[in-house]
Every structure is written in structure tokens, then in C-alpha cells.
């Protein structure tokens, strides 16, 4: 099993480099964390008991991409330049691991009514999904789920908290 996975990872790497190098301009800022997972696929597999990060896992995704979360304006669902850069980094990682499936959660702040926010969260998750699809992530790898205003991460009732809660979060399915 380990061997197969390793092979896939290497193959994915090659694909990612081939597929992305031209499409994506040098927009992607330097990753804040080291990206050795792609370079050395055996890293992290040697001693899983140490809490090392498994390539292709959600933890690997989170440390490899600019962010697993994009944000939106009030009652908005458009992907702005900042969100584009984040989703580009997600797409690049996903191209390295073409068998990995993801779910995208859509969330809202508390200033909308419950049912409208369920619909708005679905819009946001789909906006992120559609962007990733345009970047080559096939639709059958992605599911969306809207939580409306049910799962805020910032608990205050202020603009700073609201801005954090209006989000789409990409989660790698284990």
C-alpha cells in the first residue's frame, strides 16, 4: 500500500509540474511552510507514529497551500484576487494528488437569516468549486456542503469576526 501511494505521489508531482507551470504565472507567493512533501515523497512515511504529516493528507494540504480558506464580502460570493491566489495554490496541490477527493464547506456570518444563509453558503462553496474546476480539478473529486451560519470560527458580533466567518473551506477527505 505504501509503495503504491509513493508511486502515485511521484506521478502526481510530475503531472503537477507539467500541468501548472505554464498556466499559472508567478502569482503564487512563496509558500509560508516548506513544501518538501512533494519533493521527497518518503518524508513523513518513515515514522508515521511521530505525528509526521502524510503526503496527500488534509494536514499536508493545509501546510502546503497558501490557505485552505477563502473569504467573501458581505452577501457576496465572487472570487476576488486574494481568493484566486489561494485557490491556485490549492489547485496546484490537488493536481499533485489526482486521486484525492475534497469537500468544500460554505459558511456565512450571522447577519443573514438561517435558510438564506444555507443557500448563500452553497453559493460560496460552489464559487470555490467552480474556480478549482476551471484550474483543472475534475468535478467528481469535489463535493460541497453549506453550513450557513451554523459553524462560525470567529464568535464575536463585529465586522472583523463576520469577515472571518464569510468563507469557503477546502477539506481533503481522508
Amino acid at each position, binding site marked *: 500500500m505504501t509503495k503504491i501511494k509513493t508511486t502515485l505521489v511521484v506521478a502526481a508531482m510530475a503531472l503537477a509540474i507539467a500541468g501548472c507551470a505554464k498556466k499559472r504565472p508567478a502569482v503564487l507567493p512563496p509558500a509560508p511552510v516548506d513544501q518538501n512533501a512533494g519533493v521527497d515523497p518518503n518524508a513523513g512515511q518513515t515514522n508515521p507514529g511521530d505525528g509526521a504529516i502524510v503526503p496527500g493528507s488534509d494536514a499536508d494540504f493545509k501546510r502546503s497551500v497558501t490557505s485552505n480558506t477563502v473569504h467573501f464580502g458581505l452577501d457576496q460570493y465572487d472570487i476576488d484576487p486574494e481568493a484566486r491566489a489561494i485557490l491556485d495554490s490549492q489547485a496546484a496541490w490537488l493536481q499533485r494528488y489526482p486521486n484525492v477527493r475534497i469537500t468544500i464547506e460554505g459558511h456565512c456570518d450571522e447577519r443573514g*437569516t438561517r*435558510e*438564506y444563509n*444555507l*443557500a*448563500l453558503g*452553497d453559493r460560496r462553496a460552489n464559487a470555490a468549486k467552480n474556480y478549482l474546476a476551471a484550474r483543472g480539478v475534475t468535478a467528481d473529486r469535489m463535493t460541497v*456542503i*453549506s453550513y450557513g451560519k451554523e459553524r462560525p470560527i470567529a*464568535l464575536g458580533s463585529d465586522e472583523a469576526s463576520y469577515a472571518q466567518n464569510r468563507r469557503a473551506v477546502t477539506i481533503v477527505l481522508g
Partner: protein
Amino acid sequence: MPRSLLTLPLTLALAASALSAQEAPAPQAEPVQAPAGQQPALAPANGQEGLVVDVEGGISAPMPIAIPAMPTNAVVQTAAGTTDVVGQQLSQIIANDLRNSGLFTPVPPTQLRTVSFPEVTAPAFDYWNGTGAQALVQGYVRANGDGTLTVGCYLYDVLARSELARQGFVVAPGEWRRAAHKCADSIYTKLTGEGPYFDSRVVYVSETGPKGRRIKRLAIMDQDGANHRFLTNGQSIVLTPRFAPNQQSIVYMSYVDKRPAIYVYDIGSGRQRLVVQNAATTFAPRFSPDGRWILFSMAQGGNTDIYRVSSQGGSPQRLTNAPGIDTGGSYSPDGSKIVFESDRSGGQQIYVMNADGSNQQRISFGGGRYATPVWSPRGDLIAFTKLGGAFRIGIMNPSGGGEKLLTDSWQDEGPSWSPNGRVITFQRSTQGASGKADVWMVDLTGVNERRIPTPLDGSDPAWGPLRP
């Protein structure tokens, strides 16, 4: 209101139900049968004279009403408690119901006299007149041989020294509180001319835990908060429950298996059934007034539309197809129309369409956004949440005119009508990291507003129909 109308629906009550109504038998020791054939001196609730309570006025002072403890013919131990204690509790429940309506002021307990069994049908009018009471409710409790209780309920006009109504209810011990609600309903109906609503239940979402990870459970309770019961265990998020018209099931949304969709919960068996077999998210479910359909919203690819499906399941039928979010549908009481919200104009506004989806017309045009429209069971009004900074509960008529906001708080959301269309329950949230929601009620005057006591926090309350 004709007197016959008062007793008719109650008398029709139920072979199947544990509760039945009948003409109140006079207490056995009662020597005088005068009230039976006596015409009331005053015609109630016709707006002309006598004891009349104005439901919508909101300015006139509540009517003073005396509700002494109900005596028993014999103190007997029953499953509901001893009959004398039950009699005290019944009078308190009636007093609470009437007080909570905002239309009555029960005479304080210290001014109530102990009523003997024979006195139930021969009130001490001079005494009650001295308390300032305009109306008097007396009654009695009797344990029957078969384990049931009979509760008599009499309404008197104190000044006119006359009987206005009498009712009798036979209840199983487990449903003894319903006799008080039925009695309060008959008094409310007689004196206001409005339909009854006290003998009804509320289903809502019980909430607890930190704001970022609320634990949500379906719960059901009487409209006064009594007989509270949890229906789901809190492992999955549950939202927006609504009673079926026959009150045997509840439709709601659940995140069970991380697949948000609408389910029907059977109250008797506790079983849950997925309504629509579809990968898309389904939400905002509502029964049609005849119970044959479930209206719901389905989000697909970022677009949300309103559909209906047979309440038995099957293929959904699409009713809206505007780009944008169409959700929150609610049937008119005759089932011919649907009111819903849509952001097709740019922001949330209220629209009305025919039940087949045709003739969609916007009806809200005020400043701000309008959400969660709900058609009154009387058909005369639509309640909504108005968003403009704060969330407030408001009402308008079905053509969009006569807008009136009933509440003014930080965040009031999700109105649901009482069975008689005169009171609205909703959730009120407080702000900040420790913010939470509670279940509240407000009447159409907007003056009488109160929180319903629940064991934990509460949201998404939905008022059920009057119980049979």
C-alpha cells in the same frame, strides 16, 4: 359569535384522543340548576356591549378576571396527583394562559376565596365584585372510576351575575394540563371572539454548547413550555422543524451523515425518513395545509429554487427557476398560493405565486431586506423577518400593504403563527461570543412580548395546530 359555535368544535373532539369534551355536568351537590336555562345577560364579543376584549387594540387595559382554585367533590389520589391539588394547578394554568395572552389580568391569589364544590355553579358574585374582577372562572375536578378526570369549566360575567359559558372535559391523567388549556381557550374565545390557541404545541431546536459548535436537538413542548421532550440526540445539526397538519410528524432539516437534507420525523415511532433522494442539499421544508405536499428548497450549483414533493416521497416538482436564491416558501391556508423570499432583484424580498409556481409577484417594497415570510393560518397577514442592521419581526397583508414591525431587538428571526393567527413565536438572539438564542412570543399589538421558558437555549420555533 353564536354560542353554538363555541361548544361545537370542542364537542366533536375525539374518540381517538384521550381528551374529550362535553357539556359540563353540574356538580352533584349543586342544589340550584338555574344556570342551565339562563340566558346570559350580555352578548359577548360582538363589539356591542358586555364583556368584550379587544385583541388588536393593545391600548385598553387587560380585563381583570378571577380564577379561584377548582374544588373537587372528593379528594382522590390519581396518576395526575390528588384531585384537590390538580384543581389548584388547573386554575393556575388557566390564569397563566390568560395572563400570557396580554388581554387579561388574573386577580392576585391573595384576593381569591376558597370555592366550595356546590359554589361552582352558584358564584358569590358580591364577593367577586369586590375584587374588581369583571369575569370569573370557576370549575371542579372529579376522578372517574375508569382513571380519567372530569374537569368542569364555567365562565361568569360578574357584574351581570350571569353565566357566559360552560364546558366539561374528560382527560386521561397524563393529559390533565390540556383540560386547563381547553378551559382557557373557551374563555378566551368567548370573551375575544378570536379562535383558540392555548391547547397547542411548539416544536423547536434546543441549543447548547459554545457558539462555534452548537449542539442542536429537536424538541417539542406545550405552548406554555410544559411537557418538554427532546426528539433527537444532538449528534447531527438539526434545523427548521415544522409540524405536519395532523401533528403526527415533523418535517425538518438534518446534517446526519454530513448530508444536509430534509427528513420527516414520526412522533409516535421516533423514526426518520429522508424525503428527497438526491445528492443536492434540500432545506426549508414546509407542509401544505392538507398535508399532501412538502414545499422545500434545493441548492444546486449555487442556485436555490423552490420545489414541492409528495409528503410520501417521489419526484420533486420545480416551482421557481429564477437565477438566484428562492427559498422560505409558505402556503396560504387554502393551499392555493405560496409566499416565498427571493433575491432575484438584488436583495431578499417577498414574493407571492400560485401553488403551481405561476404568476410570481413581488409584494415587499420597503427599505431593507425581507425574509422568512409565513402566511397566517387566518389568511389575513404575512409575518416576516425584516433585515436592516437589526432583525425584526413584522407583518403585512398578502398584497404587501399595511406593514407593521412588532419587535425591536438586535436579532429577532423566523416568525411562526399561533393556530388562531393572533400570536407569533420567533427566536431572539443576543450578540457577542456568548450570544445565544431563545424562544419568544409576541402578539399582533407588538406590546405583549415574552420569552418561553425552555430547559436550554432555543431557536427555530414552529407553532403547531390546535390539538384535536
